[in-house]
């Protein structure tokens, strides 16, 4: 190993000194907090079980399987509280649907970080955005891997995913944590993003941003779970990229001008705070040929930030269309998501569905920004990389009595029509996913969770995807609130 190689990838390290503004020792009980703060508190126990949820409505026939979700959940330990929503250790939830009932079970992912800090009773490793004064250096990205971002059933296995390190395998039935996943020789510990794309033929595609010098890992994994290909692609910078999309022929990556600044990378500066927003630079679009990763083309969109890409497809003439949830800048991740942990609503630019048309023949690229404030775009998974019309997101309206989404939105992107459901001002809507029923892109269920601030419990709802406005066909409330999470996926029975 030479120094440069080591430098390239010993990853997200960092530790030591106090970064102003990155540390709070304030506990919930020390101050008056808004009602929505319960979404950012620890769960009431390390493991949650509710054997039979009370149902309002009836479970649709044939809807049998498990809805898995993941999200940061251990926000506090001892007298320490993380300063950022994205920092906490991941807790995986399984909502089992069957026999007319819904059962809930949740456990933390037993990463080395989680296990060691549990024993120590103290957060001692750096987090995404928080570095406590006495934090130990991180030996590798996986040393600080919280596995808190998504959960993917794939090839009869279950993977808890993070952005900057390995996937962690869980038992699909007990949620017990198994091994860190190494996809092939020489790949142990390489970044594997939380947003892999499952192709229509079952192939799993993924990327991972390698911090510092700037490089991208690309993965192609067969439906059996065995690795077909993995390569490192050099970049001239290290942008924060959370999600990507595929078409039939291409991988599409959006690289916002929110980049790791080598000068900020020093002991005591968190990974997040090592990034800098370059508002005069474009959002770069990288299009990579699926069959030959050396064939890469770059295009520019105006400066913007994103976390999520809904879907992408291309026609026979080389025109790629995709949607992403666009922000004017990085304020959500640098400020708003910190304010949430303090119980403060730091208002900033919200996400907007943005429809992009990219003609790779002549390089023409145009985008159209929709007016609604949305997040968590999902589509019918059978349409991944294929022509799609229906886009499902959460939506926030002016009536929301909290900083997050309070409804769901279906957008027909061909016709421009929308349909919505409003949970009410005191409910926080989380991601809702599409579960297919029969052929047809509108034939399916939309399943997701929400946090009811009046009753102080979490909800799980099932909607007909083509009739959101009718309200849920069935809704259940849990006997407790669970911390607000990120992403989920369905595994059919």
């Amino acid at each position: 190993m030479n120094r440069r190689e080591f430098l390239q990838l010993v990853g997200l390290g960092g530790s030591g000194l106090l970064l102003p503004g990155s540390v709070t020792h304030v506990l919930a009980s020390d101050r008056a907090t808004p009602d929505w703060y319960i979404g950012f508190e620890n769960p009431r126990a390390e493991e949650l079980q509710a054997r039979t949820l009370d149902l309002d409505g009836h479970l649709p026939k044939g809807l049998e399987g498990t809805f898995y979700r993941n999200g940061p959940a251990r926000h506090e330990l001892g007298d320490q509280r993380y300063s950022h929503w994205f920092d906490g250790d991941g807790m995986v939830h399984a909502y089992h649907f069957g026999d007319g009932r819904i059962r809930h079970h949740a456990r933390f992912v037993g990463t080395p970080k989680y296990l060691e800090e549990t024993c120590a009773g103290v957060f001692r490793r750096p987090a995404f955005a928080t570095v406590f004064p006495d934090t130990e250096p991180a030996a590798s990205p996986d040393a600080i891997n919280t596995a808190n971002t998504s959960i993917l059933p794939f090839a009869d296995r279950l993977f808890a995913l993070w952005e900057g390190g390995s996937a962690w395998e869980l038992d699909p039935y007990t949620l017990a944590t198994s091994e860190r996943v190494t996809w092939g020789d020489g790949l142990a510990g390489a970044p594997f993003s939380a947003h892999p794309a499952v192709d229509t033929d079952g192939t799993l595609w993924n990327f991972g941003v390698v911090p510092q010098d700037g490089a991208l890992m690309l993965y192609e994994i067969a439906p059996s779970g065995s690795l077909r290909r993995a390569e490192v692609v050099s970049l001239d910078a290290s942008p924060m990229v959370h999600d990507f999309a595929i078409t039939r022929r291409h991988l599409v990556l959006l690289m916002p001008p929110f980049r790791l600044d080598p000068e900020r990378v020093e002991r005591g500066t968190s990974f997040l705070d090592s990034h800098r927003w370059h508002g005069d630079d474009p959002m770069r679009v990288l299009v990579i040929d699926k069959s030959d990763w050396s064939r890469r083309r770059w295009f520019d969109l105006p400066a913007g930030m994103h976390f999520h890409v809904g879907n992408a497809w291309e026609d026979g003439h080389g025109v790629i269309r995709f949607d992403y949830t666009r922000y004017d800048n990085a304020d959500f991740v640098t400020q708003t998501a910190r304010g949430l942990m303090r119980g403060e609503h730091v208002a900033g630019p919200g996400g907007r569905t943005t429809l992009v048309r990219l003609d790779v023949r002549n390089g023409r690229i145009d985008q159209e920004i929709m007016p609604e404030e949305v997040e968590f775009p999902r589509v019918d998974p059978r349409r991944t990389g294929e022509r799609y019309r229906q886009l499902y997101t959460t939506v926030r309206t002016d009536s929301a009595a909290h900083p997050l989404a309070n409804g769901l939105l279906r957008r027909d992107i061909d016709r421009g029509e929308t349909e919505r459901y409003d949970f009410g001002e005191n409910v926080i809507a989380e991601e809702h996913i599409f579960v297919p029923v029969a052929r047809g892109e509108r034939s399916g269920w939309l399943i997701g969770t929400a946090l009811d601030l009046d009753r102080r419990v979490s909800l799980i709802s099932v909607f007909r995807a083509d009739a959101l406005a009718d309200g849920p066909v069935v809704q259940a409330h849990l006997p407790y609130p669970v911390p607000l999470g990120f992403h989920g996926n369905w595994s059919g029975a």
Partner: protein
Amino acid sequence: MRVISLATLGLLSVLIASAAAHAADLRISVANLAPDTGHLMLAVYASGDSFDARDGAVEEIRKRVDGDTATLEVSGLGDGRYAIAAFQDITGDRELTTNLLGMPQEPWGFSRDAAGSMGPPAFEDAAFVIEGEAVEMAIRLNRP
């Protein structure tokens, strides 16, 4: 002449005393080895350049791993600043195995348990001074 002899002797004794001081022992204890497997590979560097290059060590030691700790002694080091880089060679190739991205795949560590913020530490962070006295250095290896 006698006076000169005495003076010479005196000088010699100073030199001898000094030489003893300049050949202090360095006692190194290494913890968190993967138990009973492979070899501990340890190198002592006397300059930033050699440390960064991992080349030109003043002392290199290879020792079979027995248990999960090891103690080593290096003697004859002169006064100066040194830094240690260590890893456990489990694969038996005498190199630190890394993944495709250069990240260590075998236990590794540095003197003063130094760690870089995104890569290996600088010589300055791992460096310690030998000045006459014996020095004890504990290193806890990182696990991949």
